[in-house]
């Protein structure tokens, strides 16, 4: 397992209100970014972030600390995002390319858009079906293990591994097409 998954709740205050402050300081950005990655909308991301931290606050005492706090909070956020966006959007639909639900529209600032168009990897990731984008984001950006992704998305770990493998292949195809083109 990766270091991110090591239990570390004992390093946090027991009091939920004090813990909430630490969580917001330590993981405010990662929760907000995750919510934004799923929704593509800053306001929606803020709503989801609020709900994620409140859910963590409510459940802080009952959280046993089996995983790292970061993983636990990320899982809460991912669940909220999937609920909000509809879990089906993140289902794999490999057999009907024309019918793939490409999902959300991401609004970015002009400055970011210019950089995005010049990016080596990200622009290709964002062209993939949402199921693959999600797998790559959770694994590479959030550095969750396949087991943690399986828990966060309520999927068998084998399914996560397969999806990640296909996502990498699809990404490689995209990037090769770009180079050839």
């Amino acid at each position, binding site marked *: 397992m990766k270091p991110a998954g090591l239990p570390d709740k004992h390093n946090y205050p027991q009091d*939920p209100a004090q813990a909430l402050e630490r969580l917001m300081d330590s993981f*405010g*950005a990662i929760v907000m*970014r995750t919510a934004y990655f799923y929704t593509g909308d800053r306001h929606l991301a803020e709503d989801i972030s609020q709900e994620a931290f*409140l859910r963590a606050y409510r459940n802080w005492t009952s959280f046993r600390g089996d995983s790292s706090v970061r993983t636990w909070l990320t899982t809460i956020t991912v669940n909220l995002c999937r609920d909000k966006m509809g879990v089906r959007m993140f289902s794999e639909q490999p057999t009907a390319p024309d019918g793939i639900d490409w999902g959300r529209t*991401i609004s970015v600032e002009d400055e970011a858009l210019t950089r995005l168009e010049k990016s080596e990897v990200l622009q290709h990731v964002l062209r993939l079906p949402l199921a693959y984008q999600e797998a*790559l984001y959770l694994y590479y950006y959030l550095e969750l293990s396949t087991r943690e992704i399986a828990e966060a998305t309520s999927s068998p770990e084998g399914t996560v591994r397969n999806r990640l493998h296909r996502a*990498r292949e699809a990404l490689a195809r995209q990037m090769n097409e770009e180079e050839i083109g």
Partner: protein
Amino acid sequence: MTNVDNRLRESFRQEADRTLFLRMDLSDEVKRSIRRQASAVTAARRPVLPRTWIAGAVALAAAIMIITGIPMLQHPAVPAPPEQTAVPSAPANTGAAGSELSSLIMSTLGSVEDARSAFGDGLLVPAALPSGFELSGITAAGEQGKPARDVIFTYVSGQDTITFVASRMAAAFPQDLFTATKVGGAEGFVFEQPELVELYWMRDGIQYSIVGSLSAEEAMQAAESAQP
């Protein structure tokens, strides 16, 4: 991870941070909103434990009545005593508390005078709050035809909120996290957190509290300014 994986991860992270996630942090405004909602969750939770206890005790009392065959089920519940505590120690209170659960009425009040009429003349109301805070609403909770059990005053200054509560029920809070203090000679407990302070004290059998975006010193000043 393989080297390819590592390179992919580095590129993904750097590019995402510079583009999609540019300035994508949890703002102070959102943090304040989370704190306010968390505070409301805490406030809403406080009466839950005693009520749960009371509901259990009522169920137990009802079971005993049925088992012993006493035909009391057709009688109305015993009236509530004027003062109720968070954890009633005498079985005589359980029936009254149970009927209270089913008949608690919330109402909005228009003025401090209305609050005094609803709660009773003994109600203390703070005269000095931190500058900028203004009364934005008063809510009362209680049984029909009886003095209000709780009166909640909400004061607002921009995004910040202070809640002042007078209640006939003792508040349930983790005293080990609080610091003992004195409010006008009465025993009080204060808990100072970043951007959120909680102060509880009891006077003449009434539980008072001030919770919100103020310092412990300001909370003490507001508490000591409370007057009939």
